């Protein structure tokens, strides 16, 4: 049902990995490869977090900051009445892409470390962080459990403002007073 979203979900991640593996063929310049891969990883992070998760599996997560500066991580899941075959296929592609790529980047991390090509290490670490962040966020959404059940209207997905309406949400308080960061 969402061919464009499916395409882009995989496109940026796979391009980043392919560019990393074959950067010597494309260009002699380390800098060009570094910047290209970094931009691909950033576009991938943005699109998976904001677009493809919502469209393909009906999950979303974000961080919002109150007036008094406290930050909350919110994880939401859309309650779907029926699962169509196309939705299942999309969901499978989504999760496969989401899980396999961080694993690949972790392998790159070890291969870079042991082959001592340390100038790539920063990039690999950035890749792992960005991809794992999305993986973690979506798993958290998924495993939120049927604790609070409400209907999420489709109009909600048009905006990422604070939804005052009901939705199945697992709100996490990342309060700052015990000195830990607001992230998880």
């Amino acid at each position: 049902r969402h061919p464009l979203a499916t395409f882009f979900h995989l496109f940026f991640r796979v391009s980043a990995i392919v560019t990393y593996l074959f950067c010597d063929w494309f260009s002699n310049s380390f800098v060009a490869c570094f910047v290209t891969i970094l931009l691909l990883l950033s576009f991938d992070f943005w699109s998976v977090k904001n677009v493809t998760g919502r469209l393909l599996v009906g999950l979303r997560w974000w961080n919002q900051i109150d007036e008094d500066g406290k930050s909350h991580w919110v994880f939401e899941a859309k309650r779907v009445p029926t699962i169509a075959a196309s939705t299942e296929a999309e969901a499978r592609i989504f999760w496969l892409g989401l899980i396999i790529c961080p694993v690949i980047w972790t392998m790159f991390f070890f291969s870079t470390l042991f082959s001592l090509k340390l100038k790539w290490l920063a990039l690999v670490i950035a890749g792992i962080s960005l991809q794992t962040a999305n993986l973690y966020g979506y798993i958290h959404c998924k495993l939120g459990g049927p604790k609070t059940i409400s209907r999420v209207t489709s109009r909600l997905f048009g905006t990422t403002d604070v939804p005052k309406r009901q939705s199945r949400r697992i709100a996490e308080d990342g309060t700052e007073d015990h000195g830990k960061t607001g992230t998880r």
Partner: protein
Amino acid sequence: DLWGPLVLCVSLALMLQGGSADSKDDGGPQFAEVFVIIWFGAVVITLNSKLLGGTISFFQSLCVLGYCVMPLTMAMLVCRLVLLAGAGTVSFIIRLIVVGAMFAWSTLASTAFLADSQPPNRKALVVYPIFLFYFVISWMILTFTPQ
């Protein structure tokens, strides 16, 4: 919003590479170096300010520190232009003044955000790492000599 800091960081790193080091290296390690200094430095400052009991959120602080690199990026641009005209004493003085002014701007701007979120007796403890961070970046900019 970390897009702005990303763009600024990449531009600054691009302009800083290929400096006085090995020219056959294509400035690769230096590029990654600038990147790591900026991001790792920003993370450390954020952690420091949070451990001191600051009320600002982690990513907000990263965002502020990243955006406050903008004056220094402009300073780098000006320095590169000035260096095209020559590398003598006059050019050095111009670069020194520009970099100094932009450094002051960066530090004051980010301090305005980050120090306010601290209790009053801790402000200096938070300001010093920020000062050092922008000082290091300014130093890299000022000592940049094109190949």
